[in-house]
């Protein structure tokens, strides 16, 4: 088996034989879903990226905010 085959086998076999790791991966997946599919999507928009189309507009918005 070549290097890449051995590396793939390491991961596949490792994931297949996990015990404690199953619960941990479940926590990681739940966490990532909550973070990205709920929090990021609904509650944490990138204000400047979503409200302005170009970097020049974003710079202008920040300049206005800092001058006020």
């Amino acid at each position, binding site marked *: 088996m070549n290097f890449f085959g051995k590396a793939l086998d390491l991961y596949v076999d490792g994931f297949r034989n996990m015990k404690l790791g199953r619960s941990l991966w479940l926590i*990681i997946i739940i966490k990532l879903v909550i973070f990205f599919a709920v929090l990021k999507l609904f509650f*944490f928009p990138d204000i400047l990226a979503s409200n302005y189309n170009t970097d020049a507009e974003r*710079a202008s918005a920040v300049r206005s905010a800092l001058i006020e």
Partner: protein
Amino acid sequence: MNELIEVVDWSRAQFALTAMYHWLFVPLTLGLSVIVAIMETIYYRTGNERWKGLTKFWMSLFGINFACGVATGLILEFEFGTNWSNYSWFVGDIFGAPLAIEGIVAFFMEATFVAVMFFGWNKVSKGFHLASTWLTALGVSLSALWILVANAWMQYPVGMEFDPAQMRNVMTDFFAVALSPVAINKFFHAVFSGWTLAGIFVIGVSSWLLWRKRNISAAKSSLKIGAWVGLAGMLLTLFTGHGSAVEVSRVQPMKLAAMEGLYQGSVGADLIGVAVLKSNPEQTPDDPMLFSIDIPKGLSYLIYADGEHFVPGINDLIAGRSITAEGDTVYGLSYADKMALGRKARTALADYSKALEANDSNAIIAAEKEIKENFPYFGYGYLEKPEDAVPPVATTFYAFHIMVAVGGLLFAVLLLMLFASYCKTNVLEKSWLHIIGIFSIVLVWICSQAGWIVAEVGRQPWVIQDLMPTNAAISSIQSDSVQFTFWLFAVIFTALLIAEVSIMLRYISNASKTDIEKTR
């Protein structure tokens, strides 16, 4: 105005909650990775299978902590974009470059070598497995390096130039940013404090095993390693902590004055050991403490290695007052002067904006020159009065002294545990020692969190030292939405923390009923 204060306060509370939650996991990952690597090295050198069993036991606890902590820092980046958009834009690539490097290093090093650590037993050679374990430890430290470099830049902004056209700070010297003395000290202080925390964690878990009279041999061996790593971490944390204090005196003297509750500076300033601040200490600047036990001239000596050196207090810094080695009182820029210069920079920025709209190149050049000259004081232009540049003194003062006092207590615990480990009598079997060991776990996390409170509350009102105060960094958003997400985070983080602690306790309890030293 009240709405702005509410948004700023809720956003700060949210950021503090997220950062403190994130920092529950990070130091244990930093330190436990080293302890696991040391145990595996002993296994590699001796070939004794009991060390393989011990390595696997602590590696599993490392894995639980790693899994629960991973990605919790991402929330901070979400908050930058939503709550702190002015700040995020203003810092430009200074923050982006270190964080990008962190992402790449963390992903490739940790994803590769953590997998070999957990999946590679009996699949790769002993030497390669050991190398992977050490590289994981190195990888987690390198991840911490870049985020700490970014944080250090906020405390001591160097290696950049402000470009009013882009409204961003543009990095001009990567090495000045990455190798600033504040960044180097902060990195080592954080990493070594992680060693201390993990050492105490191992001592605590081992003490519980000894208390329950389970896996005595494993517990004794682990406790000894935990105590050595913890002690090494503690000594190095003390050393780098001193270095940090010296840097703070140089680049953030107001933070140092707040840490010591020093309103009126003096030649030969005392170091406070134990003290209670008066309720309104600013009203009695010559005597701000209800009571205190001081080390005479200790502060001057610690910071300047000269017991007769002048240490400025809060009022001296506001007035720009200092005392020379010859005893002459001299005045530099007061905070009122800096506010005037900061306002000049803000006005010049407004002129720049108008000139840009009018496409008046001469006016643009003139405004750019004015901005550049006064940019070091740009943030002072947002203050209403000089006293606004004083951080919350009581929080900074107590957090600092709690950190030092608890750190001292933990130092004694580490020495006691080492003594008990090598003592020929049966000290290690005493219940009181086990209770101290278990209780120390709580103390070390208090100490670790207190350190960050000093660093972050002590630098207020600045989000970027002297350049941007917190209230200028905030986005134009409603406080209601920030309040809602604050409580949402509180619920999610509490649930995740309960999940981690319960998985960890269940694992320790189950493993304690088996032979930990037996290779599984």
